[in-house]
């Protein structure tokens, strides 16, 4: 290796690190502010004492415990429904022949382009007709039949060897039993991938929950955070950044602990 190549590599590594540093900077700044007393929020001193006071104040200033519970229920409900619905539909598309299958599949794929996120006006009207505005099911319902999930599972089920299917059938197993005993266990990594993507999507979702909820009893953390930080807090950045980090914490901690799984899951979900 020549000298000039060495130098080029060095410059490249430097550039990569600089970009990485820039990428983490806004978050690092938020961490600094959240863990220090307000007088240090914009002043950097290495000796500044760490404190959890901002988190305590944020936690007491808004019903975050309830918001967390709501988000938790929302994410669980959506994921549970998605797993059942998408498994059944994915299985139908992968292994059954019926008239209209191609059109049905096309109609499912439509949702990949036109997501519920842009149909807020009509979906709000539907929820209002159903009489379930301001409830957790209203937030989750439009997302439960996920085209992405159906597509992902269809692709996975198609790779299962037919022989396994046949063998189970010969032993007298019905379609649902075959699905449960043969297909589902083989798709475990895909379920993990889909689960992680779905949980992070719905924990982070904001606009639709903002529209469809208006009370503490149904708001997820993202909406709670917005109500909190645009309320009469003035601009106490220490408390707001603390609240911000709090709402991101479950995913952030999960990500830092299970980095490999996260990255691989997002990869797996994307390749299909």
């Amino acid at each position, binding site marked *: 290796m020549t000298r000039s190549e060495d130098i080029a590599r060095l410059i490249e590594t430097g550039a990569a690190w600089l970009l990485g540093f820039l990428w983490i900077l*806004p978050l690092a700044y938020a961490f600094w502010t959240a863990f220090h007393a307000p007088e240090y929020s914009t002043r950097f001193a290495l000796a500044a004492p760490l404190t959890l006071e901002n988190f305590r104040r944020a936690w007491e200033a808004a019903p975050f415990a309830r918001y967390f519970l709501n988000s938790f229920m929302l994410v669980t409900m959506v994921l549970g429904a998605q797993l059942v619905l998408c498994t*059944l539909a994915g299985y139908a598309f992968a292994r059954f022949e019926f008239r209209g299958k191609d059109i049905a599949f096309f109609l499912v794929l439509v949702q990949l382009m036109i997501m519920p*996120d842009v*149909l807020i006006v009509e979906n709000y009207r539907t929820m209002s007709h159903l009489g379930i505005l301001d409830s957790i099911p209203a937030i989750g319902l439009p997302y439960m039949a996920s085209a992405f999930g159906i597509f992902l599972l269809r692709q996975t089920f198609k790779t299962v060897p037919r022989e396994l299917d046949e063998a189970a059938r010969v032993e007298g197993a019905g379609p649902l039993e075959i699905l449960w005993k043969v297909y589902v266990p083989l798709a475990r990594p895909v379920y993990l991938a889909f689960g992680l993507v779905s949980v992070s999507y719905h924990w982070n979702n904001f606009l639709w929950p903002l529209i469809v909820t208006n009370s503490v009893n149904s708001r997820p953390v993202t909406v709670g955070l917005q109500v909190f930080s645009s309320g009469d807090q003035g*601009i106490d950045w220490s408390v707001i950044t603390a609240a911000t980090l709090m709402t991101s914490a479950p995913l952030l901690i999960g990500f830092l602990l299970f980095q490999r799984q996260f990255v691989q899951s997002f990869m797996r979900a994307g390749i299909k």
Partner: protein
Amino acid sequence: MRASAAIHGWLLLLPAAALLALFTHWPVVGTLWDSFHATPKGGRAAPFVGLENYQVMVADEVFWRSLVNNLWYALGTIPLSIALAIVMALWVNSAMRGRTWLRMAFFTPTVLPMIAVANIWLFFYTPQYGLLEQFTSLFGMSSRNWLGDPQTALACVTVVAIWKEAGFFMIFYLAALQSIPPSLGEAAALEGASRGYYFRRVVFPLLMPTTLFVLVNAVINSFRLVDHIVVMTRGGPNNATSLLLFHVYQVGFSFWDTGYAAALTVVLLFILASCAVGQFVFIDKRVHYQ
């Protein structure tokens, strides 16, 4: 046997199909229908008004502003986040020192809620004591209100979107890079090809399906994701950062003019549908729809 397979197939599909019809297909039709009707008042059925909502739209300056903003926003976020994603993926995939740390740094914004990200950046851009101001003042630049100035506000929210998305797209490129056999690189090196040449002639073409996939996602996101607008600027100053979906949200849920909001949604649906058609035409169907 055949008939029973068909019945089973439909039964399996039924629950998902019902929900999809209710919350995706029906709303699309409903949007079209409502766009030709006035906003219903006091429980009475909305009267048919023909193209009136569309005439209002043509005369609505905020709509045009939002559309143009959205196009600039898309033109800013899409190419930059894709280019950065490729560079990031190449770095993270190489033998570079600290690449695990880099991967974490690049990917972290993806797992954060957009709303949290927006709060963090709001603080970052704060006049006088935000980090950006502290940095520019080191160089003796005069203080400015980055988000309050119509000239810079749109660029500011574009940067946030790039920051959030580049790491997400990086993952797809990383997956694609890892599927390229290393023997190709070794062969190219033996032949004396430079790294730049190898990237241009071998790697980049092999990444093409990924690029198209990412491109479609990026386009959809640039019309779908307005959480940060709600938090950072509320479309201001003077509608400088209003995007289409944000305008829909304001018309529909601040002014409660649902008839007009439906007409605006039709424009959004039209853009997304053209994107879908474009994808079918340009992307080799085998890549994603096998």
